[in-house]
């Protein structure tokens, strides 16, 4: 038995420092020739122990900390945390604050999806697309900087509201930037569904059926590319998503091309949402008063991060520090699909399959 399995089997260790991704994660692929026969993953290289540190700091200090769970989806983490704490305290942020939170969430989705487009094009060996998409991404980075003062880690949220306001000048800049990005996104959509050499890397590779997606519990655009209609923005609207509902983008094919198409169409949907929010931005206050001590209790807060469902559990005992904060991030849900889907593919396809779920190890390890 042992000799049988060991015969012609070779294990290739990859990581934690590897040229494919910028984040530490260790993978072991057993291969038979070029074909992957088994895969394991070891995570935790970016584990800093944030959840434990959160128990030492007060509710306000923790906003700063949870923004730094992940530099790409920092606003989503802070929103999930703030919404949870506000629910525990029985406070509801004013409508204008909720709309601005939603606006920044969507701008962040735009920056994250463009970033992902570049990185996965790089994995496919298509560096031209990588450079173009990152050049265009600077447009949305400029908008985020104009709106919040920071390119990354925007610090928009405070408990009970937001601290930035949208002026007419910034709104006009955003409209202008989105027009440019919309045109470029239509171009990229055409590229990923018609470029012959790119399609050879993406079409029919890493196919995940709808049933597999449901069994493995994948979330976010990865699930939607397999035909699973799952989006927290619609299932359990938070912030201002009840007033500004997005359309769910679903693709039935489940391969890597579908994931590109779904994310690019989500970009177009985000542009529409941002324009709609700017056009119908409610008037009013930006913050409401929050108590220093939060009433004791437990709550769950769910938001749709660019990578999928982000889940926060918060527990308070009535003091100014939390008893427990737990975050479950989309990458851990999607990682099983990589280990499963890699089997049977060529080793050269594995980086693209991994990039296809848009992994974020720092979210995942916390």
């Amino acid at each position: 038995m042992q000799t049988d399995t060991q015969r012609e089997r070779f294990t290739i260790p990859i990581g934690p420092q590897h040229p494919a991704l910028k984040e530490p994660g260790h993978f072991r692929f057993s291969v038979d020739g070029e074909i992957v026969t088994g895969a394991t993953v070891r995570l935790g290289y970016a584990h800093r122990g944030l959840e434990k540190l959160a128990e030492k700091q007060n509710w306000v200090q923790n906003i700063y900390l949870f923004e730094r769970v992940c530099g790409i989806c920092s606003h989503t983490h802070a929103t999930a945390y703030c919404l949870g704490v506000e629910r525990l305290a029985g406070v509801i942020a004013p409508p204008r604050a909720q709309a601005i939170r939603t606006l920044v969430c969507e701008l962040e989705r735009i920056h994250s999806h463009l970033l992902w487009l570049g990185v996965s094009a790089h994995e496919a060996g298509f560096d031209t697309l990588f450079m173009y998409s990152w050049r265009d991404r600077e447009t949305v980075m400029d908008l985020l900087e104009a709106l919040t003062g920071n390119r990354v880690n925007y610090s928009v949220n405070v408990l009970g509201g937001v601290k930035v306001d949208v002026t007419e000048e910034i709104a006009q800049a955003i409209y202008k930037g989105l027009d440019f990005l919309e045109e470029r996104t239509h171009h990229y959509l055409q590229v990923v569904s018609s470029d012959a050499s790119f399609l050879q890397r993406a079409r029919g590779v890493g196919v995940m059926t709808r049933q597999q997606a449901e069994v493995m519990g994948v979330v976010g655009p990865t699930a939607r590319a397999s035909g699973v209609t799952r989006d927290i923005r619609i299932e359990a609207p938070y912030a201002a998503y009840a007033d500004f509902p997005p359309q769910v983008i679903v693709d039935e094919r489940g391969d890597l091309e579908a994931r590109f198409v779904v994310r690019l169409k989500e970009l177009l949907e985000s542009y529409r949402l941002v324009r709609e929010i700017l056009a119908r931005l409610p008037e009013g206050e930006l913050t409401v008063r929050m108590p220093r001590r939060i009433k004791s209790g437990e709550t769950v807060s769910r938001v749709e991060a660019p990578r999928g469902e982000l889940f926060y559990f918060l527990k308070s005992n009535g003091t100014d520090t939390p008893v427990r904060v737990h975050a479950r991030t989309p990458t851990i849900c999607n990682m099983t699909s990589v280990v499963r889907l890699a089997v049977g593919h060529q080793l050269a396809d594995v980086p693209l399959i991994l990039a296809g779920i848009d992994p974020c190890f720092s979210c995942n390890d916390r």
Partner: protein
Amino acid sequence: MILSEKGWQTVFDRIKTWARVNSPWVIHFNSGSCNGCDIEILATITPRYDLERFGVKLQGSPRHADILLCTGPVTRQARERLLRVYEQMPEPKFVVAIGSCALSGGAFHDCYNTMGGVDQVIPVDAYIPGCPPRPEAIIDGVVKLLQKLQQGEKAEVGDQKPGELS
């Protein structure tokens, strides 16, 4: 005119410094960072900021690299790997710590699983503060390091005796 042995050595040293300053290859290692600095490093090498105009090339293997760009507070898991990447780099090698976490642990200095900065593990030549530093700051830091190399300051890390580092 025939140069003495010492004269040739000077010529070779000048050529080496010229080559090193004009074409440094960098490797990026994430030792537990939140990704914020990493995406800014990537933004630095893409068209808007284009670090490649200084001859800087992002390299996948530590064995080909001159400069290690290091982000993150160094988690206990990543510490060993960081040391291994550093040891694999050929001499002379230089380390740039990018972001508040890499400088001092930053927001994570109290976490149980972090070492509190890259210089707790390996010697660092340049520090770039910020959470995360802007791409302009990263370019400034790398260019300052290159100027330092040109003046020949600490050009040969390997020449220094143990304990003399940083």
